[in-house]
């Protein structure tokens, strides 16, 4: 039975609130109902339904688009945890379709091929909440200003290489720290540079963190990678190719969940990291030409 008649739905509290409930958890990319069940069984807090995981998108090339609605519905029917799905940057119609499918969150994602090279969606216009990627503070605040109720640092999706993810979360933290204690004049200048309202900068600096939940994404392949992300201040982690491209997906998924909870406890990390077999192969960053880096998408 739906919400009571006089209740207010799709408020900022309900949109940003769902992200708060996902904190300390792992959101896993899945491409079919069977994988979604493995993810739920491992303790994922949500799944991201998509047709190909980022490493396959990278390998196959071509244009990557929103997934087939039937596939998303199949995954929704298979699990009881939240189901997220990706729309192309700026693709209003894909996002409206996903909203009509009643997905729990839309990821306006650089992993798909952008539909608009100038504008991201006005996410305030939607009832469904959005998560967006960022690689620095300005990008994060622009997305939040457009209505994103959750952020994720981008990393470099599909590489199994954590180095970009580390760079991005550290950049966000350092840029916030650098504004701490600065004059109003300096904050106003920073807001202008970042093309966001001064009030949003002020709020962020006062809180000492982004004003919405912020996960780390892009390159997490092992339990230790997840723990490192938490160590650097992540509220939780997205794992894409890292699970179903590993030798033992179910065991790797469960181990990454444990590592995200017990990120401070090295003895537990040692225990859950053992016996997972080979992780996904991974790509060294310097072998990826600048033009093929997914994290560069977004404006």
């Amino acid at each position: 039975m739906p919400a009571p008649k006089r209740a207010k739905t799709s408020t900022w509290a309900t949109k940003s609130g769902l992200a708060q409930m996902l904190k300390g958890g792992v959101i896993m990319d899945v491409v079919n109902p069977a994988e979604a069940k493995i993810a739920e069984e491992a303790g994922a807090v949500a799944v991201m339904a998509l047709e190909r995981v980022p490493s396959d998108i990278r390998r196959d090339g071509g244009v990557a688009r929103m997934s087939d609605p039937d596939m998303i519905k199949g995954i929704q029917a298979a699990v009881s945890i939240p189901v997220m799905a990706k729309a192309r940057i700026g693709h209003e119609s894909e996002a409206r379709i996903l909203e009509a499918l009643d997905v729990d969150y839309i990821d306006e994602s650089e992993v798909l091929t952008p539909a608009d090279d100038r504008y991201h969606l006005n996410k305030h216009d939607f009832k469904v909440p959005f998560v967006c990627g960022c690689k620095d503070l300005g990008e994060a605040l622009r997305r939040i200003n457009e209505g994103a109720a959750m952020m994720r640092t981008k990393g470099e999706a599909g590489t199994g290489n954590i180095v970009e993810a580390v760079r991005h979360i550290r950049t966000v933290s350092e840029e916030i720290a650098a504004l701490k204690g600065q004059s109003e004049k300096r904050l106003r200048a920073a807001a202008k540079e970042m093309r966001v309202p001064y009030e949003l900068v002020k709020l962020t600096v006062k809180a000492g963190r982004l004003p919405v939940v912020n996960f780390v994404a892009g390159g997490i392949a092992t339990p230790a990678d997840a723990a490192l992300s938490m160590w650097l201040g992540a509220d939780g982690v997205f794992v894409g190719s890292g699970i179903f491209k590993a030798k033992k997906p179910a065991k790797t998924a469960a181990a990454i969940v444990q590592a995200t909870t017990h990120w401070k406890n090295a003895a537990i990390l040692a225990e859950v990291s053992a016996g997972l077999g080979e992780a996904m192969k991974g790509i060294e960053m310097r072998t990826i030409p600048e033009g093929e880096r997914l994290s560069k998408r977004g404006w």
Partner: protein
Amino acid sequence: MNVSPSAAGNTVAKRHIAPIIGVLAVQGDFAEHIRMLESLGVEGREVRLPADLDGVSGLVLPGGESTAMRKLLHRWDLVKPIKALAKRGAPILGTCAGAILLATKIADGDEPVLSLLDVEVRRNAFGRQLESFETSLVMEGLGNEGRSRTIQAVFIRAPEIVKVGPSARAVATLEDGRIVAARQGRILGIAFHPEITGETGVHRWLVAEATAALG
């Protein structure tokens, strides 16, 4: 040392009446609960392993994904020590996913986890995220001397209490009569999130009960 007896007495008494409240921190919005407790001048302690429960005199089971929390509770053998804590008379507050963990019955198949609150709950009872909502409701036991009070409540993919057993009592309902909070002695399960609206009444209740339980 020149310490007056009354001052020394105060120190002991103070240590006695300031309870430490554990907050289950395996997953979910535990930080918001700890912030609420701190705003009331009470220490909130993250609980991830059984040893973290030593010395706590009350517990919060936060919002989060109950399927994930359930697995982490079992994996780290937290079920027994939490039940033992309840048996010793410590109050336990479960919000949303936390209320699901407390229930004696979960509709549509899932095994109960802690079975400390005599209710049947249905997960995601209102639907998916687009049916998450905010509303005001009347909750018993929050006003002066335990009277009812109207509060603002946020429900996120929330459960509903579909049946209240003989040992428990409904303490909050929606305008359409659906039950969203129930209490059994010092165990309180609610389907919404006072920790994200800044409604302190529920946490005040928890701290008062923990203090009373300490004697």
